[in-house]
């Protein structure tokens, strides 16, 4: 089951609807990677608010997406990490340092508009 990717101006929005299998995530990475190229997007927002768990694989893949889109000229913002999920990620030893994060879609769009650097937690 693929994750639908919407285009809004120069921004691609992928909204994860359900608990994801590893293959869904890899599919999303490949889809976004190719779409960023032909759509000439400058920003990518991945909404993970429906994700039940962000384990090491999901975190690594999302970080990979941010790296790939950056190389292709688009900035990725991950939005909607739930309080419980954020808490479990930290306990597990995971972080998304270097990737811009936002509370929700609005914040994500604002961050792309501002051209925030990917480091809410620094300087």
């Amino acid at each position: 089951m693929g994750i639908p990717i919407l285009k809004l101006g120069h921004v691609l929005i992928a909204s994860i609807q359900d608990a994801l299998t590893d293959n869904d995530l890899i599919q999303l990475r490949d889809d976004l990677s190719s779409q960023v190229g032909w759509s000439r997007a400058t920003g990518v927002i991945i909404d993970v608010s429906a994700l039940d768990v962000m384990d090491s694989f999901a975190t690594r893949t999302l970080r990979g997406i941010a790296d790939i889109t950056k190389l292709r000229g688009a900035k990725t913002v991950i939005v909607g990490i739930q309080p419980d999920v954020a808490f479990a990620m930290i306990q597990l030893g995971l972080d998304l340092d270097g990737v811009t994060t936002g509370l929700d879609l609005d914040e994500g769009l604002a961050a792309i508009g501002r051209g925030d650097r990917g480091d809410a937690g620094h300087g």
Partner: protein
Amino acid sequence: MADLDFSAHRQAVHLTDEDIARHKRFVGLEAADLPRIAAVRPIVMERVDELTTMFFDFLRGLDVATPLFRRGDLLDEAKRMKREHLIAMVGGVYDRAYVELQLELGLLYSKVGLDTRVFPGAFYHLMNTVGAIVMANAGDDPQKAFQNFMAVKKIGFLDIGLMIDIMAAEREQTISIQQEAIRELSTPVLQIRDGLLILPIIGTLDSFRAKQLTDSLLRAIRANRAKMVVMDITGVAAVDSRVANHLIQTVAASRLMGATVIVTGLSGDVAQALVSLGVDLGTLNTVGDLQGGLELAERRLGYRIARQADSSLETA
């Protein structure tokens, strides 16, 4: 304890069949005791009113028991239940229903504020009287009468054991409810401007509290759509490497939700100690004091705070 009413949170204390069985083992109650208790039964039943009256007369003589005697309605209820309990003591069935009866009586005593510590004495007095009556009715076999009484005495100790369990469980419950209340009071997350939260941390920060604090901060970030958080640790009793790691985790978790945390109130001594312990504070945004932290947060959010040249002119 009396000042805070926790009754809404309090759950009834229940002992399981397992607990009851354990107490029976403690006092060595066995099947052979049941016929012995049955032999004492008619003697006690005949004098059950007398024994009940005597039990309360003994209590009446104690200063600490006066609250009970001021409440006529509850006193009658207590007498009725005590009488029932005496009958049950020689009834031969010591199951959950038996324990429930004790619980009810205990609840009634605590309603009038009666100190539970008076009961072992009153109970001892009662058992003594029962013993005297049993021996007076021994007939030509005092040895057997004594054995019978010893079986009843096991029930007496069974009761005391159960009572201690109930009291301990109640006390534990009170303590945990109070702790919960203190924790909630001690970790307020306040919104002071749109998008700006302040989290003053006071007291000791163990892993459980750190977890709870992070939990409430993350929820507040979402509820208030906060972008900046000023976390003031001036009031944290001792900042060691463990506490520092908790704080670092809280900051990292907030960042995952898109919020930036500024830590204030980290004293020079503490900072030096942490660095020498090898704690990496590089990931923390720190500002000396709370005021400085708030100013930085406001600037980041785009606020410009300016004092009016002469406020009296404005309001005139």
